[in-house]
Every structure is written in structure tokens, then in C-alpha cells.
């Protein structure tokens, strides 16, 4: 069974509130194809219909210059752009570049943080989808081979 559908069926609370929810948000299935893509551009095309983004200074991407630990890289994304619908993290050199995607309903602030894995040094891109299109900010995060953990 598709996990996305299972959530939809299981979430009785969510079901009860279905009427109150903006259409298109709740039933959003887990984007299996986008997450399965081995190429960043393909993943973005799967997810957004295009891989073209506009670099934007209005996005603050927090990521370490040198990851202390490739298994746990803290990432934060914040933006002053309005009408934000989703915020995604794309790690170009990961075997599956699309790492995580936050669906942002109206009323939720475009200010998120998470911890991700990185296989090697790579560009990390924050992609912000707004009602006006796709915007991005990118940063290189170096991943080094550890010693014995300090």
C-alpha cells in the first residue's frame, strides 16, 4: 500500500478536519518518483515540473561549511518570500538528491530546520516554491572522512 494513502486513511483526526483544509494539501501523496531520482534536476522536475529556479537573497540557508559528521548535518531554511507553499532540500551529490520536502500551509512560517545525511562534499540547495515560482539558495557543504570521532 502506498504510505501516503495509508496516512490519509489512518489520520481520522485529519479526516474529520478535511473540510477545513485547503484543497490539494492533505491528500498529497509521498512523491516517490522525485525521491527516487538519482539526478538533482530530474528530482526537481518530478517534484515541481521544472528544475529552473531563481536564486534569491531572500532565502537564508543555514548549513555548516564543513560537516562535523556526514550522518548528521544540521540544515535550516528561512525566507522572507511570501506565499510560500513548500521548502525542499536538494543535495546534488547524494545518491538520491532530494532529501526532504516541507509542505507549508498558509499560516505556517517558512522557517524550518532538520538534520540530513550527506555522502560526500556537495552543493546543498534550498528550493522554495511560492505562488510566484521557484526560488533557491545554495551552499557548498564539505564532508570529510572522520578520524576516530574526536
Amino acid at each position: 500500500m502506498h504510505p501516503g494513502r495509508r496516512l490519509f486513511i489512518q489520520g481520522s483526526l485529519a479526516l474529520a478536519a478535511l473540510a477545513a483544509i485547503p484543497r490539494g494539501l492533505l491528500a498529497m501523496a509521498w512523491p516517490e518518483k522525485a525521491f527516487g531520482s538519482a539526478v538533482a534536476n530530474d528530482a526537481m522536475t518530478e517534484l515541481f515540473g521544472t528544475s529552473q529556479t531563481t536564486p534569491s537573497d531572500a532565502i537564508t540557508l543555514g548549513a555548516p561549511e564543513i560537516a562535523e559528521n556526514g550522518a548528521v548535518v544540521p540544515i535550516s531554511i528561512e525566507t522572507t518570500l511570501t506565499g510560500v507553499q513548500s521548502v525542499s532540500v536538494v543535495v546534488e551529490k547524494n545518491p538520491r538528491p532530494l532529501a526532504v520536502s516541507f509542505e507549508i500551509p498558509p499560516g505556517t512560517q517558512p522557517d524550518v530546520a532538520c538534520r540530513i545525511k550527506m555522502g560526500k562534499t556537495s552543493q546543498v540547495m534550498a528550493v522554495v516554491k511560492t505562488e510566484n515560482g521557484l526560488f533557491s539558495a545554495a551552499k557548498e557543504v564539505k564532508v570529510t572522512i572522520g578520524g576516530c570521532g574526536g
Partner: protein
Amino acid sequence: MADKQEVKVQTTRQLLIFCLCTALSSSAYAGPEEDRIAFQAYFQTRFPDVPLADYINGIYALDEGARRQWVDIEEFPPYEFAVETGELLFGQIFRNGNSYSDCFDSQGIGVRQRYPRFDSDRGEVVTLEMAINLCRQRNGEPPYSYDSDELVSLSAYMAWTSRGEVIDIAIPDDPQALAAYESGKQFYYSKRGQLNFACSDCHVTSAGLYVRADHLSASLGHPSHFPVYRSKLGKVISLHSRFYGCIRDVRAKPFAEQSIEYRNLEYFLTYMSNGLVVNGPGARK
């Protein structure tokens, strides 16, 4: 004065060489308190910008870039699950009606800073983990394996209740206690393994320098934050499990957790951090 000291050292060395003294030889050297003062002063001289109290943060006292990422992780540290599990386990009543709180001072809350302690009746160093198992056995419960999640969680919880307490390891007036301390000290400073490294080679001499892509932490403050959640392993591990890893990394055959070697080492190492505070459990890569 310096000459006098040198003469003293040389004389002792000769004594050693001729095997004229064994345990007593330590009395010719600095006592534990002199050791501790020198140990702490060494790091303060070496890293004048690092406040003494900051050494409890291990490598993050010396590596700013890594520190920021660690602070992010401490926002919601992954060891909280272990603390929670530990608290539940700690509250359990044994089949004989007793509980862990009956085995410890202050009912086991806020006692981490006095472990490991030298137990003169047993004639050996007792670590917190060992005390937990002794408590179980005394109450007719089977001991936990030392690398079990249960034991590590209990230790994590007990450390948690001791956060901010000043580490206060005592060396009682008992030649056996001093011998245990000296044996831990010798272990710490002795090269071992195929790589021929002593603990001090990495964590004193090379503290703050790179080993491959990692900076090496200072030994001062090492025991303050254990047990530690290691993101590499995805679980909380004990100090002895870390010792095990270090010894293996220098390509020596590791000793078992809670072996007399590691307990004495912990005794020495924790004594060196007397005056700092407990901040365990911790999070490390």
C-alpha cells in the same frame, strides 16, 4: 629547586630500574592533587582562550565549527529517549520490594559526580555502572550486560540528575586506592598497540590537532559528559565502550568494559576533572 627535583626523579628511576620498590615508588612522585593541578594547568596554558569550565564540552571546547553543529543538535538531543527510558527503569521496584534508590546516597539522585569511587571493603574501584549492577545483585536481580541499553539508559538518567554537580572523586587514605589511581595513571600514559600510542599522545600532546579530518579533544573534562549518544552508532554508549574504541583504534586488543584496567583508568581520568561539573549525557558524532 629544579636541580633538586631532577635529582629526585633520577634517584627514583634508578630505584625502579633496580626494582627496589614497587607500590611505594609512587610516593616519590607527585600525589594525585599535584597531578590534577598540573593536568588542568597544562590545558589552560596550551589553550588560554578556552575557559576551564568549557572543557566539559570535549572537542567542542576546541573546535568552533563543530561546536555550532553540536549546539544545533543539543537543541533537541537524541539522548533524551535514553534519559526517559532510564528514568522508567530507575523507578522500577525489584521483586524483593526494594529499588535502586535504596542502594545509593541521596536515593541515587545527583550522585554521578562521586563515581567512580574506591570501595575499600571490596578493595577496588566501583564505577556507576558497576554500582547499578551490584545493586541489582544485592536485591536478587540478575545483572545487566554492560553494553545493554538498559544499563546505559540507567547511567544516562543518573548523569542527567547530576547535571551541574561538581565532580568530586575522592581518593581515600588507603594504599589500595592510591595504587588503583596510579595504575590508571600508568595506563593513561603508556603507549600500546601496533600504532604505539598512549591516551596522552592524542588527548594531551595532540589535543586540538587533526587526526585525519577530526580534531582531537582534550582529556580534561572527558568523563563529564558520558554516557554519550553517538550519531555514528545511533545509540548511547558508556565511557568504557569509548575506551574500548580508542584502544582498538590504536590497534591494541581492547579490554572488556568494566575490566579493572578501565575502571582504574576512569578513576584517574575522572579525578583529573575534579572541579568541573557533570553535564552528561552528551551527544557526539
